[in-house]
């Protein structure tokens, strides 16, 4: 490896990535792909943690600082950018190849984090369908309900965690971050409303709440009157899901997971076939 990143740094870097993938704190790693006019060494790496601490070096303080800033922002960005390429020149960075100047250094930025998490409030029919399908999608699922006859291992063998307690306290005990989705599908809108108080504005990448247009409006109005910030309430996906005409619990789960995927990956929710003519030929 490079002078700036001797063997011990490589070991620390790989350790940190492995820990992140295994459920530890997420890390971002920038790698020089092309050194450009700045003559950075291809393969040089800088690891960035969510709080801005770094390890290793890209080979110049300027490049390190630019990528550190970009990486810190990437931790909370939606949609999740797993890998992106950045072009650096004269202290300025762009991720658009068309705006890259001649001789710009090219740096690949990768985000390493544990599988996405899904917190399901409500262990009823929709909760069960959600947990079942979310497992297929690779989510690590936590199920919350105060009714042990619903929230139990026999019913939810696929769940990573089952919490049987009052939903507000249970939600408070969880860390919600940009790769966590919270979906409120409890037995009634009173429970959903209480759960929303403990889920909104806490940094979750997605908060969804089931219910009719009227019911969900009422809940949002209650929370607004209690002083919850309008922007946070506006961001709540409610009524939850994409409009696919879902009727059964399983179809509703498809609708919700489709919306979660759309938010996470940055899709539009339109039919692919409607984009046919817009596709540029390659």
């Amino acid at each position, binding site marked *: *490896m490079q002078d700036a990143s001797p*063997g011990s740094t*490589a*070991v620390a870097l*790989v*350790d940190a*990535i*492995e820990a992140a*993938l*295994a459920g530890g704190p997420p890390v971002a790693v920038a*790698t020089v*792909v*092309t050194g450009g006019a700045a003559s950075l060494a*291809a*393969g040089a790496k800088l690891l960035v943690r969510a709080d801005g601490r770094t390890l290793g070096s890209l080979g110049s303080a300027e490049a390190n600082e630019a990528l550190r800033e970009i990486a810190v922002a990437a931790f909370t960005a939606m949609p999740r950018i*797993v*890998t*992106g*390429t950045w072009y650096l020149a004269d202290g300025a960075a762009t991720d658009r190849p068309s705006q890259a100047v001649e001789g710009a250094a090219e740096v*690949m930025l*990768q985000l*390493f984090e544990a599988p996405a998490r899904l917190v399901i409030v409500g262990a009823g029919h929709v909760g069960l369908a959600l947990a079942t399908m979310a497992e297929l999608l690779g989510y690590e699922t936590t199920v919350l309900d105060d009714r042990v006859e619903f929230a139990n291992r026999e019913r939810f063998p696929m769940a990573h965690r089952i919490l049987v307690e009052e939903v507000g306290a249970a939600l408070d005990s969880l860390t919600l971050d940009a790769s966590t989705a919270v979906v409120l599908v409890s037995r009634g809108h009173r429970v959903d409303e209480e759960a929303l108080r403990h889920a909104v504005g806490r940094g979750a990448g997605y908060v969804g709440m089931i219910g009719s247009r009227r019911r969900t409006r009422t809940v949002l109005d209650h929370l607004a009157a209690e002083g919850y910030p309008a922007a946070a309430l506006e961001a709540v996906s409610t009524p939850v899901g994409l409009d696919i005409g879902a009727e059964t619990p399983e179809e509703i789960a498809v609708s919700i997971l489709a919306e979660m995927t759309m938010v996470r990956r940055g899709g539009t929710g339109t039919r692919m076939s409607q984009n046919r003519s817009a596709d540029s030929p*390659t």
Partner: protein
Amino acid sequence: MSLDLYRELRESLATGQPRVLATVADTRGSTPRKAGAQMLLRPDGSFSGTIGGGCGEAEVWQEAMETMADGQPRTVVVDLTEPVDGDDKICGGVMRVFVERIG
């Protein structure tokens, strides 16, 4: 970008064995895997992970073996838009793969 891949990388570093890591840096058009997909190559030519199966993987493997030998990082441009030797190019995009030796 699996956990297994980094576990192996940590173990190989600990025992002083080289590995070559191939990462899809970016893609254009339709490609089998997207940016971030990784493949880990061992000195004997075996590998784990995939950057797209038949579509261009052999090309990357060849370059990765070069990097294993000389330690020089490489960027491999895999063009899946031009049919070669009657090969069925079902992918149709272009991807750039960064190849580097670790350890």
